[in-house]
């Protein structure tokens, strides 16, 4: 049994410790806002916060997440400045990558409230968007920083 704390709720899952956290979140616990895109840490769709840091949940064995605070897209309130900026800028197209983009952006802004253009790009570089929403993402991060 693995004990997890996700979005402030404690869960017990019967799963072997090397299973990627991503699949435990999505399929065992049915928090499907966190997405699978590549499984090798190269797309960012699976980004969650572990103890406040943005992490690729496909690269984290669930055993390593025990005892840590995990936050997924479902744990971020709708009124969060980043979510509001994402709505204002109408960022999503298909939307599939966006949970990961938002989680990455929140981690960025909590570390640097007013990031430079370069910092935004460097931090968001690991999150792929096949629909091509990159320009709206930049606008939304800047807008969230301003309004935040």
């Amino acid at each position, binding site marked *: 049994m693995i004990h997890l704390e996700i979005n402030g709720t404690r869960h017990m899952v019967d799963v072997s410790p090397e299973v990627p956290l991503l699949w435990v979140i999505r399929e065992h616990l049915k928090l*499907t806002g966190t997405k699978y895109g590549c499984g090798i840490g190269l797309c960012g769709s699976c980004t969650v916060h572990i103890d406040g840091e943005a992490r690729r949940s496909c690269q984290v064995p669930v055993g390593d997440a025990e005892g840590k605070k995990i936050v997924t897209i479902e744990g971020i309130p709708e009124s969060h400045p980043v979510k509001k900026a994402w709505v204002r800028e109408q960022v999503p*197209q298909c*939307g599939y*990558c966006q949970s990961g983009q938002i989680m990455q952006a929140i981690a960025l802004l909590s570390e640097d409230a007013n990031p430079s253009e370069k910092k935004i790009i460097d931090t968001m570089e690991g999150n792929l968007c*096949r*629909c*091509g929403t990159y320009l709206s993402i930049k606008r939304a991060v800047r807008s969230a920083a301003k309004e935040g």
Partner: protein
Amino acid sequence: MGKTITRREFIKTSMAGAGLAIAVSLTPCGCRLLSAGEAEREAKAFSPNVWLKIGSDNIVSVIVNKSEMGQGVFTALPMIVADELDADWKQIHAEFAPAADKYKDPAWGRQSTGGSSSVSHMYEPLRKAGASARQMLLAAAAKTWGVPVSECNAKKGTVLHEKTERTLTYGELTVKAAGLAVPQNPPLKDKDLFTYIGTPLPRLDIDAKVNGVARFGIDTQVPGMLYAAIARPHAYGSKAVAFNQDAAMKIKGVRNVVALQTGIAVCAETPDAAWEGTAALKAKWDKGAEPGLDTESLRKRFLADLDREGLSARNDGDAKAALARAAKKVEAVYALPYLSHTTMEPMNCTVRIGPDACELWVPTQNQTGVLALAQKETGLKPGQIRVNTTYLGGGYGRRFETDSVEEALKIAKAVKKPVKLIWKREEDMQHDFYRPANCSQVEGGLDEKGRLVAWAHTIVCPSIFARAFPDRVKDGIDPAAVEGLKNLEYEVPNISVRYVRIDTPVPVGFWRSVGSSHNGFTVESFADEMAHAAGKDPLEFRVNLLKNHPRPRRVLEVAAEKAGWSRPLSGGAEGKGIAQVFSFGTYVAQVAEVSVDREDGIIRVHRVVCAVDCGDVVNPAIITAQMEGGILMGLSAAMKEAIAFKDGGVATSNFDTYPLLRISEAPKIEVHILESGEKLGGIGEPGLPPIAPAVANAVFNAAGIRLRMLPMTPTTVSEAMKKA
């Protein structure tokens, strides 16, 4: 996922007076509007396609028969209804249509999404549905108040009688309205009176997508379902010679092993167990159909086929004779690779089959295809099968294919349990229906005055239509392969287009902007080569070839003007290029500004200016987003993407070997929408084709190298620089 109701429930509720519903019956000569009751009675004679329903709670539900894959139909189609209805946008609710005859696209006779045609195909019927419901609501209010209809007005979901300052909401009027006859030819609004159409209304799907609650296919959860994973062979045509079923079955949670045509499926209680099971199978495969197939052997076959005669797709004047007479001749060969769709949501499908019912949850662009497959696999009737279209995590044409649906159906049938099949990224990339690789040989001739007098074009390209829609292959010509060539608008007196069909084991399919994704590059690069040979400015050269074609001329001129074509470059850019491509009813021109690093061969695109003429405009914000998206996907393909082959199959497997464009590589983009008032064109695809040639032409302008092969990777650039 939107709340959906079956038609029977719907009829029942509306007959019981819960709401007003309008069905639109599309006939070959237009559309007929029916009340819900009439629709039920006439369902055999007419197939009602689109429903709008107003509940007593004032909510207006629009049932969308097109798939939402990011292109915005879930917003644009309801906007059309809302405008004619004078509804309150805040009360509009969109629902995905199930798969059924009545939801077929009238122009196609099938329920599917593609060809950037959703808005143009549904525009008129949806306007009529909205306008007709509005008239009925006005009449119902007039009757209630005992005043002439002409004194009543509709605004934001309410009917007003100004003289007496009385109002009734649509919700309050539905019962009375539902009893009235449906006006057949409701007057449609004058364009000037549109309140929603033409405005950048926020999308209806944004909140769900920002909060992680939008349901994509892969998010489906069905009680008691098993997870299915498939071990697949590497090589095309390869079959399993041995696999260890017992080893897989020993894994905790594994319940079944099912051999399929396409591989060996393992079903388990958790996805991790299913994948562990596929690995435990240790399947051994034979060498397949063509074990020697690799990138290089394919390249050689394509180029060798340029010498084949092929079939004539177009023959204006006498290109051969004109070339022989030409004062100056240019000849070039272009080659483009196979491309993967790489939707961020990999292929998946969830199926539940019971003795007399089957339900599917699938992110599909092809409801008609899914329904037909489910019928075939289960033997059930269409009425017993429910296809739930979820949100699509990208489509780009890949989700027109139903391969993963067929697998899921077969597995669910075998294991007699609900099954969710998930493809891993590697499977998704290695078992795609790729954008066809192709090569072209083009010869152009100029007269003494530098006028383009001859264009002879031979393209070697696999056929998508031969598999997908064989009826549409006329005289052996694949319409996609010659898209943009057969209808080349440049006024050249002598044009010949020849098509050489090449068949390889690599399956091909519709990829965002289809044939225009490659022919746009070839044509617009060659037009630039000819301009250079003629010693003319590339913009002026093109404009002179479009004297009788005002729409492409105008997008070129607007893009050039907004980009400051005649002004010197700034901001570190060293070269600029222009291109225009017509596709899917829309004209798009783009100017790209680039710099080229001589040392490492990296091309940087600084800025793209885009002018688009798609006729009427429904939602300019969505158009801008689609142009940006098309440009970035096109740029990704142009700079980075190519599927590699080895040992008879696909070598590329994930984002490490198939990199996509990242945020640092996204240029500034400016989009200018030209409201031409012409026939509605598409927006999902047409933004893509011009970017590759605009960039290649800009690279030539910056560094004097002509890149005729995609992708334009640093290696290609460095090699070209060495040769230059």
